[in-house]
């Protein structure tokens, strides 16, 4: 059996009396696309942010490739090859789309001191252009990201997560607001990257078509706890999950 890329054990985070994450454990295997679903307020985003160092968990342990990364800062996690997107739009509104993509990966090029003398695009232009085409945002590539429509910003946001070619990417509702034609595109892209680069993905999503089609395994969270974990087929037929989340 292969060692997991990401191992989360007994993660907990409370806000006062609200136990947003109440003891969650799971493992993500190399090359796996791992889905996380659950009703609103079940703690998915809180779990993400705890894993990614945005907020400090109350308890629990997180390992990346066998190393303890609990309480590491978001910067350190990114430097170790973990990419992410946020549930809310998080782009650099005053920068052009292209610069958004370049800045998303430049910190992986050379040393901080060396970058002081490096060319402005850090040699990432080609990579940025490739992603711009892949996400079909060429026609807005030179616009300020803050002036794009919701869906366009979402696409930029996702593309940014891929710029530094991370080994593990955590995506929080990537499809929200994205046109169905592009949802298919994202799906294809993830599968491709998953094949070619053996990248692993954790995806929170409420779009069930997307999740069921894409994910190898799915974790269902309810009230901060794990309700079920299994293949799409297993989840789809899980009575409890149907009641709590999917509906008939």
């Amino acid at each position, binding site marked *: 059996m292969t060692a997991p890329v990401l191992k989360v054990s007994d993660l907990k985070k409370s806000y006062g009396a609200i136990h947003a994450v109440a003891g969650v454990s799971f493992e993500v295997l190399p090359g796996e696309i791992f889905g996380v679903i659950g009703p609103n307020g079940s703690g998915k985003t809180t779990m993400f942010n705890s894993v990614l160092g*945005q*907020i400090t968990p109350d308890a629990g342990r997180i390992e990346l490739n066998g190393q303890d990364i609990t309480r590491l800062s978001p910067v350190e996690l990114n430097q170790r090859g973990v990419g992410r997107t946020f549930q*809310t739009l998080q782009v650099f509104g005053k920068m052009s789309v292209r610069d958004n993509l370049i800045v998303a990966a430049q910190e992986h090029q050379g040393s901080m001191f060396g970058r002081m003398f490096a060319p402005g695009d850090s040699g990432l232009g080609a990579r940025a252009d490739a992603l711009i085409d892949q996400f079909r945002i060429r026609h807005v590539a030179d616009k300020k990201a803050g002036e794009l429509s919701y869906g366009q910003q979402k696409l930029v946001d996702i593309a940014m997560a891929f710029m530094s070619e991370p080994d593990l990417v955590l995506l929080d509702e990537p499809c929200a607001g994205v046109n169905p034609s592009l949802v298919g595109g994202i799906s294809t892209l993830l599968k491709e990257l998953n094949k070619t680069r053996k990248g692993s993905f954790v995806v929170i999503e409420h779009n069930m078509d997307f999740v069921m089609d894409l994910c190898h395994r799915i974790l269902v969270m309810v009230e901060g706890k794990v309700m079920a974990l299994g293949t799409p087929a297993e989840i789809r037929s899980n009575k409890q999950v149907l009641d709590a989340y999917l509906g008939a």
Partner: protein
Amino acid sequence: MTDLVQLLLSGMATGAIYALAALGFTLLWQASGTINFAQGEFVMLPAFMMLAFNTMGLPLLVSFAFTCAIAVLVLGWGFKRGIADPLLRFGMMPVVVATLGLSIAIRNGVRAGYSAEAHPFPSLFGDTLIRVAGVTVTSGDIGTLLAALLLVLGTQAWLSRTVTGRAMQAVAQNTESATVLGINVPRMVFYTFAINAVLACAAALLVTPTYLAKFDMGEGLATKAFFAAIIGGFNNSRGALLGGIIVGVSENLAAHYVSAAYKDAVALVIFMLVILFKPQGLLGQKIERKV
């Protein structure tokens, strides 16, 4: 012991003055998300207006009423139309700089157009000395303290208890959403600045007997008010009072027990500690970030 009490009482009276000026800052911050760097001048201008009415023979309180009316028009409505409406949506920097420019203009306008001298100002509460057990306070001190308390609590209650007050805060937090809900954004903004103008007049009425009407009185007042507002909590009107009193009292105690040259440093140290360890201020609520 009586010395200590004397210093405390004196400091509280001065602190009340700082609090009155700080109150305007906290109001504007909560209800429009801006800082008015001309706030000191917003106190100075009514002081001169009242003085003018007063010298014309009107009783102090009548002068105050007239001044309030003019201030609501000029410092309230005028400020809203002239500065807030066009600039608020561009974020903090342009407003800060425009109010800086405004303060330079008002201060020097009064100096060039009226007088560079300090003028005495009648006290609403008189200047009777009250001696109790070796400690002396003036009726003005007590009156100022009580008035500050009243104004602070009133403003706080208005903001948190009334729907209009909450709508004012809502506008500051998210103008577009407020519009979408049918909140009359321009009116709320006007209320904010009108109340601020009245508060400034009240502050002028109460602080000028001590501060003296002078074109640059706003400068010192504003600095102390910043300190007070930060220490007490910028997003809380009660904080202004607490902050003001802390600054006033700590200055006095420091001047007496520490070196006088570094007495300002004591308030400064408290100020820095608060900023760094409780940036929301002693009474302010924490603003958490959500990602």
